[in-house]
């Protein structure tokens, strides 16, 4: 494989980024949150993390265990339904014979909690710290799982989009000539398609899945970056080092990936965080409009939609949770983006008069 070597200038820029405190901290916070969200199933779940029952250990987080395995029965006498770990915990505490380790929030983002005299949504209390939504589901759990989906959706989409965009942009710049001419016209046509409408039209026929949505949006995501990569490569390929590499007999592939791209990384790095912001907003928007991921997928857009329903206009907790989460996430990503942009700014010491 090729060795992707950062040129010293770029390496220096990354060092500079680390010194910009607000961006660096935002990156750490966001990375931590993203990392934590990977473990959402251990943070908010109806299934226990660990059960010790009659001398046997269970790790039910990702597996289905029946009530029978723990000697439980529901009110209709069924024992092959999913075990109820919250009740099990109480029983074992009372009668001994084992113990249950529950997640901090013993709710998953799907199961309605109807144990209130009033129909949902119910305001925050000790059982549901963020309240419940209009289906009686725990708002915190939905927020957490919604974050995981949003952030990984955005990262996947940006990864797909920027990879395609960078490749095409680089090829345009490098090959120039007819390829550049025709592909540029194609991009002009393609970019005039209103992507939101395209997604909406597709969604009227099929309810898209996570990856399908990544692919559909990815078809439009790549366009933006091609313009920058194209011009960068156009400029870089005429530089002396590129000519030198070519005269040493470097192959096209080597030339592009080893020599040119590392020198063209500035626009890619600076635009990527903002692409993430756009991707999160797009998913939220689509979910809000009802064209995103199918119900009951936890999603911020769906939460915002609920909060804005006229019948929920007095249920303020429904609005606070998704809006502050969205605000915080976009703020963090934007901070990172701003800092990267600043770190990569060639006019570091420019003075404006």
């Amino acid at each position: 494989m090729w060795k992707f070597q950062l040129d010293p200038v770029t390496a220096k820029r990354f060092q500079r980024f680390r010194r910009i405190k607000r961006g660096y901290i935002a990156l750490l916070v966001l990375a931590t949150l993203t990392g934590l969200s990977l473990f959402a199933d251990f943070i908010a779940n109806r299934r226990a993390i660990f059960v010790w029952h009659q001398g046997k250990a269970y790790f039910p987080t990702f597996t289905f265990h029946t009530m029978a395995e723990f000697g439980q029965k529901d009110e209709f006498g069924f024992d092959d339904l999913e075990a109820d770990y919250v009740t099990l915990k109480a029983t074992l505490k009372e009668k001994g014979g084992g113990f249950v380790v529950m997640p901090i929030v013993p709710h998953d983002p799907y199961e309605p909690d109807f144990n209130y005299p009033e129909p949902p949504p119910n305001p925050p209390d000790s059982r549901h710290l963020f309240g419940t939504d209009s289906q009686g589901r725990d708002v915190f759990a939905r927020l957490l799982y919604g974050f995981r989906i949003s952030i990984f959706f955005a990262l996947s989409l940006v990864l797909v989009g920027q990879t395609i965009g960078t490749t095409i942009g680089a090829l345009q710049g490098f090959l120039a000539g007819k390829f550049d001419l025709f592909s540029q016209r194609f991009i002009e046509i393609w970019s005039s398609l209103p992507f939101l409408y395209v997604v909406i039209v597709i969604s009227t026929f099929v309810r898209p899945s996570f990856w399908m949505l990544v692919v559909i949006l990815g078809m439009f995501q790549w366009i933006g970056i091609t313009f920058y990569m194209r011009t960068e490569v156009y400029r870089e390929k005429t530089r002396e080092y590129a000519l030198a590499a070519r005269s040493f007999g470097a192959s096209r592939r080597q030339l592009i990936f080893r020599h040119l791209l590392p020198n063209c990384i500035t626009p890619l790095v600076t635009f990527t965080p903002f692409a993430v912001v756009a991707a999160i907003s797009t998913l939220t928007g689509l979910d809000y409009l009802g064209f995103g991921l199918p119900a009951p997928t936890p999603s911020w857009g769906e939460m915002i939609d609920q909060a804005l329903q006229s019948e929920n206009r007095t249920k303020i907790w429904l609005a606070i949770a998704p809006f502050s989460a969205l605000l915080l996430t976009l703020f963090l990503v934007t901070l990172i983006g701003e800092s990267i942009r600043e770190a990569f700014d060639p006019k570091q010491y420019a003075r404006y008069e």
Partner: protein
Amino acid sequence: MRSTLSGSRLGGALGRSALVLCVAGLSFGVVGQAAALDIPGVVWETNDTDPPIGDPSAAKGGTFYDYITSYPLTLRLVGPNSNDAFAGWNRSFSMNMSLILRHPTTDRYIPCMATHWSIQPDHKTVYYKLDPDAKWSDGQPVTADDYLFTNEMMRSEHIVDPYYNQYWADHFEAVEKLDDYTIKIVGLYESWRPMEDFGMFPLPRHSTQLGPDWVEQANLVPGVVQGPYVISEAVSGQYVVFSRIKGWWGEDKRYFKGMYNVDKIHLKVISDVNAAFDFFKKGEISHYTVTSARRWATELDFPAVKNGWVHKKRLFVDWPQGLYGFAMNLEQPIFRNKDFRKAIQYTFDFDELNNKLMFGAYYRMASCFEGSEYTNPRLKPYGFDPRKAREHLRAAGFTKRGRDGIFVDEYGQRAAFTFTYGSKSLERHFTVVKQKFRRLGIDMVLQLLEPGTAFERGLERQYELTLMSRTTNFYPSPKQYFGSVFKKTTNNNNIWSFGTARTDSLIDIFEKDMDRGNRIRAMAAIDSIVQDEAFYVPFWRGPYIRFLYWDYVRWPAFYLPKRTEQYLDWQVFWVDEARNTRLAEAMKNGTSLGEDLEVDADPYGVKARLESGDNTSVLGQ
């Protein structure tokens, strides 16, 4: 909700849906018999003994304020764009009065534009004697020529209205004038309700220039009408005012006494029903129909209610509900198994939805002809019963739980299906249903599509489970839903692809048999078969009108007639000027008039009947 082949347009064609008639097999207890007037062999019937529709002591005068959600695109009642919400008001107030009516409380025929009628033994031909007092709003008399003109105009391509064209082509053989005030209408087929199937309204020949540009010309010109109101003011985008005609010809007719009481009806354009609620609270509109159970349960304790300035009423009425519920596609392998279908029936937990999401406001349906006289009274809903569901699942071959907790059969087939729907507002109900199904080992995948696409998927049978939602007329129409002839093709209302020789013969009895008892028995049998086949999971209904009104609006003791779909079907309310003054005074001083604590009104015993578990509607009194 999409209306069906028998939707609101039909209502328009025959007067309006609530004004539409009636049963030939019905016995007329008090039908007056006039002597044969001029045609040999024709025995004229009339009815001058039923009670008035409204309250004859109602005061006349005053202004009533309400709202429409959009300014009308046209004032015509025929042709393009003539079926919006405003057209409902327009029909109700000013035009399209039918020849006769079915009394909305006693269910018997009563005179309207015609004073007498005579149904011929061929079940196709009806003679009518027109009311010689009837006048157009420009003073011209309404005569037989106007009916001939209706027959011409509705068949004309100049009206650009394929619906009416088709309706006329499918129903009318001939309309004949015998003299200026006697007409004969001949239908195309034998019917046990010829006055309903072949009913008609007059159109003014003298003031209509029917030609290629009629649609354009008549677009924004208030028509010449036979009803009690004319459009007197219309400000684009803001409001429309109807004014009562002074000395309207029908004012002193027996059945119109106590109806059409207010002088002016002011319809403000308010595009959003929630905004309209705020307008109501401010007193800018007189009346507000509450459609949200949540609003009804939680938002109606504002000061005006507490002070008795505003009344809230839940009036139980007797109007049939169409099909509304889950529909299973019998062409899909998983739903070919009857036991699996029954398992779904027993897994659907209506009580949880009703109590936990809908404030316990609704009643479960069991029949596919719910609320009509053709409901099978012995039908009980399946009800939530996980034990029975489990038995049926087992019988369907789903015996063990897979690793995700969903049942699988011996071939590895999961107990899973996709539910296709277009109603986003019901999604929260469906996610609760999904969770319930999931817990009991059935996986229902939710697929929300754009409403039009979801509707088409249903018609084309491109679904496994879908949401069926159809309005109905006073009489059910079983053939379009259960006729086996529709199984061969798609794009029809037989969306489950059901139909057997047995049900076909029963439908035939309903359509053709002149004996009401036979028809009722046949329909009850269809109802039982459909329930046993279990491909339709009926949802719920609210057989009532929930509304708010300011204290100056008065109603008869029974509020609205029994057969009322929406309150504007019958204008029996009036405005009490003395109370208006009293209310203004009380509001100025902030004094209370005493809260009206009688919220539920059940003058027809509908609530009592439903709560005793009887879903039928009783015809007549």
